[in-house]
């Protein structure tokens, strides 16, 4: 269970950055977009956003809305965009790496040769 929470949390920043990269969004909107695809505690989004602001990956601005409280929009900075690209490519190699690992583990269950193979090209 802990692993599931951890890797969901880990990828949350990536999801947020990609969404903000499309257009500026506010916290609640981000939460809705993400929870449409990934089941996650929406509250965990705000610590991530805060950290991104602290790291200079995004900035915020307020926009009044006709109903409800003003919306705090998040905007990706150039540094944030560069970091996002880095994360995306990192993510893709990570996912394909794990997928390969899983496939091999299923194929050669307890097969020593595949484990050696895996260690040879990580």
């Amino acid at each position, binding site marked *: 269970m802990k692993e599931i929470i951890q890797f969901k949390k880990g990828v949350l920043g990536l999801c947020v950055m990609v969404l903000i990269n499309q257009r500026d969004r506010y916290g*609640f909107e981000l*939460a809705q977009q993400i929870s449409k695809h990934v089941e996650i505690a*929406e509250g*965990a989004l*705000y*610590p991530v956003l805060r950290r991104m*602001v602290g790291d200079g990956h995004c*900035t915020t*601005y307020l926009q009044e809305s006709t109903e409800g409280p003003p919306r705090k929009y998040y*905007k990706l900075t150039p540094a944030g965009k560069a970091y996002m690209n880095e994360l995306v490519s990192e993510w893709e190699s990570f996912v394909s790496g794990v997928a390969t690992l899983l496939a091999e583990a299923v194929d050669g269950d307890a097969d020593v040769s595949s484990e050696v193979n895996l260690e040879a090209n990580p």
Partner: protein
Amino acid sequence: MHKEYFLLKLKLGLLPLPEEDRNEILAEYDAHFEFGKQQGRTEEEIAKELGDPEELAVELLGDRDEKPSFSNGPMNAAHMNGSNEMPPPWQEMNHQPGMQHGYDSRWDNGQGNHSMPYPPGPEAGAIRSRTVFGIIGVIFASILIVPFLIAGWGVCIGIGGAAISFLVSPLLYVVKLALGGVFYGAEMSLIVLAFGIGIFLTQVMVALFRNYARLNMSYIRWVAHVGRERR
């Protein structure tokens, strides 16, 4: 969980943060509730989707560990670096207070870095917030329980006093007669009756005192235990 309760729990968890940062975070969650309600969801549903406020507080406190850097690997790797990388406090002065649209100075303009000079690290934060909750819980429970305990002792003392006065009433009657009081048969039988009740009350008292003392002890032990367990 209602919005107010959620925000209160979050606030308690965020007590180590400076007030400005704390209010800013709370305002953001507050707004989240408002947006959710606009979409016709109840406060309970929204709170459930947000997750456990205590855990969120721990997460938010953990943020203070990181200094701004543009690439330190995957985002969550930053969680791992402990407090050994802390910059000295005087390097963290690029904080800008929020000045926004007159809505509420709780909002931040997004540029400020809110790193704290001496963060305890995520783990220490977790333990500390639990301690705070434990202690606050004990305080609130005690506010409720202690008056009842004191009232109970009052009842005990009252019954004890009655028992003693009933027991000594024959003695006092004898004194009264010795001082030249007039003897009435009815009075005499009342005194005898009072003495009987006194004996009865004494037995009740002993049992009551013993059990009540045990109850009080269990409360004291509970308080002491909570303190010890959380430390």
